[in-house]
């Protein structure tokens, strides 16, 4: 695994300020959430970012059904929450 600097920002705005990019092979800084995908890519040197910005605990993991419809956050685990309880 290529060495990287790991940033652990306290909130989402701090994470965004680090200007990481997702889904690019040439980005100097990339995001990592749980790691299920990213750690594999790092292990196999598919990705070699200089910096990794952690989103652990910063994203909305809710699944809500309201009058506007269904709202799904970025990292929720579906099987624990399905079917959603109507508000």
């Amino acid at each position, binding site marked *: 695994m290529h060495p990287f600097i*790991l940033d652990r920002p306290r909130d989402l705005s701090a994470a965004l300020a680090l200007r990481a990019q997702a889904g690019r092979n040439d980005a100097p800084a990339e995001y*990592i959430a749980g790691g*299920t995908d990213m*750690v594999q890519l*790092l292990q196999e040197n598919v990705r070699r970012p200089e910096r990794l910005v952690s989103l652990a605990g910063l994203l909305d993991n809710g699944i809500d059904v309201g009058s506007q419809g269904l709202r799904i956050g970025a990292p929720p685990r579906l099987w624990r929450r399905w079917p959603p309880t109507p508000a």
Partner: protein
Amino acid sequence: MPEVISPVTAQGAGAAAALLNVVLRVNGTEHRLALDARTTLLDALREHLHLTGSKKGCGLGQCGACTVLMDGKRVKSCLSLAALVEGREITTIEGLAQGEQLHPLQAAFIERDAFQCGYCTSGQIMAGVACIAEGHAGSPQDIRDWMSGNLCRCGAYDHIVAAIQDAARATGSVRGG
């Protein structure tokens, strides 16, 4: 083939990267470690805390031999960076028994002869504990579906399913998914 990680290579022999201070809570005990950012939870457990019950099979999340519980939920410890799981309560196979008293699923694995070489066993047991707690051990097919992330090259699946079914009955946790 899994890469053999020694403490030296896990720290990155050629890298001058600064070490991160990481506090890991494992089996009820806090450990203060200085880790290379690249250190996975599995390598921290095995190479730094010398808890070698969790096994490295593929190192890519495909085999499940490294399964541990994090806040009671099963995770592949080879795909977690140790520095990102600070403050989480991690349970490994070493933390399952109460002294000499085996966890009901450990006892069931012995009773049902649910292993051959044993390499996948600690991951199977940790995943099985979570499978039962989730309520996914209601039927043999249910167990097979929800244990599909843990491979056994020896092919002890029938006995693994039987052991999980026994333990689910013993702990009164048999219910629908």
